């Protein structure tokens, strides 16, 4: 029999399977009134330290939970449990980012009465930016020692985030880091970014960040009520 060749127009989104699961997670979170925050940054930018500090500030007035994404070990989840917060560790065993289906697998363990669910992504300023986890807010962290040229070098993380948190700002007197340049370049890429200057060591900017989170939660619950 003669073989017939033909062309098949498909037009299907390859990232779509992740997006579908992410949308289901987003819907569930909204139903429960939980604000989920996906934290992106390079390794060592201070994601866990920031979570420890804002966790301590918010834990008396709000119900918090933390999902820790790492390639290996439970170390970050243990740090969070030490300050009295529930933490769930996802180890990706080599994968450089979290995907929505990894979250879906542990979603049943997340209490429905949380206020905030922080999701600490795998330390990587590139790949996690491509994967929607169903979060309500995306934070990108940039620490002073990393250098002030990052927004334009890693634009996707900055384009897809709503909040830029500059961390380790207590080191500014010692390092050639031009804060104005970073903020200017980040806003050129994404004019809607909200910027916070923080230090987990000195405590700078943490009250402002917590106030912002509480205001966002209140506003979102008002909208979905």
């Amino acid at each position: 029999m003669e073989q017939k060749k033909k062309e098949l127009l498909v037009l299907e989104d390859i990232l779509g399977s992740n997006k579908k699961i992410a949308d289901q997670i987003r819907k569930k979170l909204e139903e429960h009134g939980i604000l989920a925050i996906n934290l992106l940054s390079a390794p060592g930018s201070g994601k866990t330290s920031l979570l420890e500090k804002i966790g301590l500030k918010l834990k008396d007035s709000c119900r918090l939970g933390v999902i820790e994404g790492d390639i290996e070990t439970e170390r970050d989840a243990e740090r969070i449990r030490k300050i009295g917060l529930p933490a769930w560790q996802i180890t990706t065993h080599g994968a450089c980012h979290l995907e929505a289906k990894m979250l879906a697998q542990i979603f049943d363990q997340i209490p429905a009465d949380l206020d905030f669910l922080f999701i600490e992504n795998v330390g990587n300023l590139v790949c996690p930016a491509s994967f929607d986890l169903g979060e309500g807010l995306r934070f990108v962290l940039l620490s002073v020692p990393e250098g002030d040229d990052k927004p334009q070098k890693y634009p996707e993380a900055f384009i897809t985030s709503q909040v830029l948190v500059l961390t380790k700002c207590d080191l500014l007197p010692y390092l050639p880091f031009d804060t104005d340049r970073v903020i200017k370049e980040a806003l050129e890429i994404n004019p809607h970014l909200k910027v916070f200057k923080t230090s987990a060591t000195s405590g700078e900017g943490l009250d402002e960040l917590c106030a912002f989170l509480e205001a966002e939660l209140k506003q979102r619950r008002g909208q979905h009520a």
Partner: protein
Amino acid sequence: MHELSLVADLFTIIEEQASRAGAKRVTKVVVSVGELSGVVPELFRSAFQSYKKGTIADKARLQLKMVKIKFKCRSCGHELTARNIMDESFSYVCPACGSKDMELIAGRDLYLEKLEIET
């Protein structure tokens, strides 16, 4: 680094589409890759080559069509294309009206565009 997991999702779509169309074999796969999709074409290609073995697309050629990053000005509607992601001269300011309110309208997606099949 995550190209292999994307290729796995691609093959789920390929196999579903091919079986629905009654294909005996897939001979060509055309994927459009946004410059800002986070996909490295070389890595995607080598992941495709190792993944395709033993599938219906065992002998298929992969064609990647790169899609440029495109912004549209929310103020005046002007459209602006970046030559590539590392284009240093590129600024996120509208050259027509000076507004900084630019919306990304192309370059983030990763699509299976079409398949060539034998029935």
